[in-house]
């Protein structure tokens, strides 16, 4: 499985990155900051810098409103050129128009955003595939970027590219420490904001959002999985490298140290899955179950495949109408057009499923070798909403 690179791993290729940094004293932060007179591109929370730091490249990019709050790598012509040379595709090739503003994501524009995010040139094909996927109509990036709900595009990587780029699939898979995971997810975010217009608080009106909006990229730990990978399940060859994009909520950790059988463990998982979005939400769509290697081994040890897990969860996650009426354990519940189908919903025992189909429960194996923790990652996938979209990495 891909391992964490050495502490200096991934750094050497950008050794020239300091060449353009002006040798100026950096402010100690004690000067009063200007406020309220930033340039027109300023975004909320990105006020113009004090004059003494105005020539610092990092501060200039803050002042132009082009960061996510963390510093970005200045997209100099040289850096972008280096990324494009490695890619060997025409710079003006149009990959997609990015909703909701439909800015043109050419190869060059994607490269500029990838450089800013800190990507190495060889990450670019992954970023391009991710941009293609989120701009597929089925993903509904318009809705994902504009909703008051919290989704962030989660990139799930399969295939040999995980090894080639040292994409983390193991310990701390959702966490920091790996350049590829950190910068590929961040590059996609920059494309959504800079080309799609998803500026927080302006177009992107998410009430809470979640930290995955900084970056959200994992690899599947195929080598520790008892089953075929997400990509192979979707018809790709094991030798293909792919991305799968899910408009995803934050991961919900599922703790279970003591289950030793598939039904026991899946009962635990079902109870956590039952509350995603709202405990009375029904007819939900694509959602991801991330099983740790230890949990996957317990389930596979009973001879269960992914389809058995899905079937178990689907069947268990059904509730009678009477438990889903608005006003019972919360004001939300079944919508009126569904309630109208039942003469006496308060007492009706007809079972309504949490998910529209078992196939909406995607399963991958990821995470460290030790630890009986899995995660449920809810999609933003009500009927008519976003769907999981996959693309082969070219």
């Amino acid at each position, binding site marked *: 499985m891909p391992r964490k690179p050495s502490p200096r791993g991934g750094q050497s290729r950008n050794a020239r990155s300091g060449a*353009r940094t*002006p040798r100026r004293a950096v402010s100690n932060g004690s000067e009063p900051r200007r406020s309220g007179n930033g340039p027109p591109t300023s975004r909320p929370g990105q006020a113009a810098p004090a004059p003494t730091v105005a*020539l610092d*490249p990092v501060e*200039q*990019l803050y002042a132009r409103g*082009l960061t996510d709050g963390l510093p970005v790598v*200045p*997209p*100099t*012509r040289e850096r*972008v050129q280096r990324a494009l040379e490695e890619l060997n595709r025409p710079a003006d090739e149009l990959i997609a128009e990015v909703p*909701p*503003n*439909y*800015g*043109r*994501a050419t190869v*060059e*524009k994607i490269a*500029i*955003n990838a450089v*800013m995010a800190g990507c190495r040139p060889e990450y670019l094909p992954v970023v391009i595939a991710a941009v293609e996927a989120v701009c597929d109509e089925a993903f*509904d990036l*318009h*809705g994902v970027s504009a*909703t008051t709900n919290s989704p962030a595009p989660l990139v799930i990587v399969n295939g040999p590219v995980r090894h080639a780029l040292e994409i983390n699939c193991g310990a701390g898979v959702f966490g920091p420490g790996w350049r590829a995971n950190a910068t590929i997810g961040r590059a996609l975010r*920059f494309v959504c904001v*800079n*080309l799609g*217009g998803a500026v927080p608080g302006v177009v992107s009106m998410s009430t809470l959002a979640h930290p995955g909006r900084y970056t959200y990229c994992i690899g599947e730990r195929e080598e520790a999985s008892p089953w075929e990978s997400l990509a192979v399940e979707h018809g790709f060859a094991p030798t293909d490298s792919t991305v799968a994009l899910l408009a995803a909520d934050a991961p919900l950790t599922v703790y279970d140290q003591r289950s030793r059988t598939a039904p026991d463990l899946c009962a635990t998982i079902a109870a956590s899955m039952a509350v995603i979005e709202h405990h009375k939400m029904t007819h939900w769509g694509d959602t991801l179950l991330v099983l740790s290697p230890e949990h996957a081994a317990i389930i596979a040890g009973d001879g269960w495949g992914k389809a058995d897990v899905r079937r178990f969860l689907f069947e268990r996650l059904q509730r009678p109408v009477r438990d889903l009426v608005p006003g019972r354990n919360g004001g939300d519940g079944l*919508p009126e057009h569904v309630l109208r189908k039942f003469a006496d919903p308060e007492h009706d025992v007809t079972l309504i499923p949490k998910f529209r189909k078992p196939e909406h429960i995607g399963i991958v194996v990821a995470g460290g070798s030790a630890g009986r923790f899995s995660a449920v990652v809810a999609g933003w996938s*009500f*009927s*008519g*909403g*976003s769907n999981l979209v996959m693309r082969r990495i070219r």
Partner: protein
Amino acid sequence: MTEYLDPTDSVAVPRKTAPRPSSLDGKVVTLLDISKAKGDHLLDRVEELLRARTGVATIVRKKKPTFARPAPGPLRQEILDASDVVIEALAD
């Protein structure tokens, strides 16, 4: 300032909103429900007030299939062809 390449699409320009009419007298007003819960409650009340307080000629009610996506092209064209004013409701 150092020259950096532009990560945004400078070709994409913000669209301007259509000119607002000074009066609703004789106008065709479309009320567009985006399919959020209780959007119809809000628009029912808006319709009531428009009828009571203005001289609108016609009020047309339309509904998007889902709030999660833009209105389909044919629906947008239909509204564009038939209306002077559109009021869109976001509820919950």
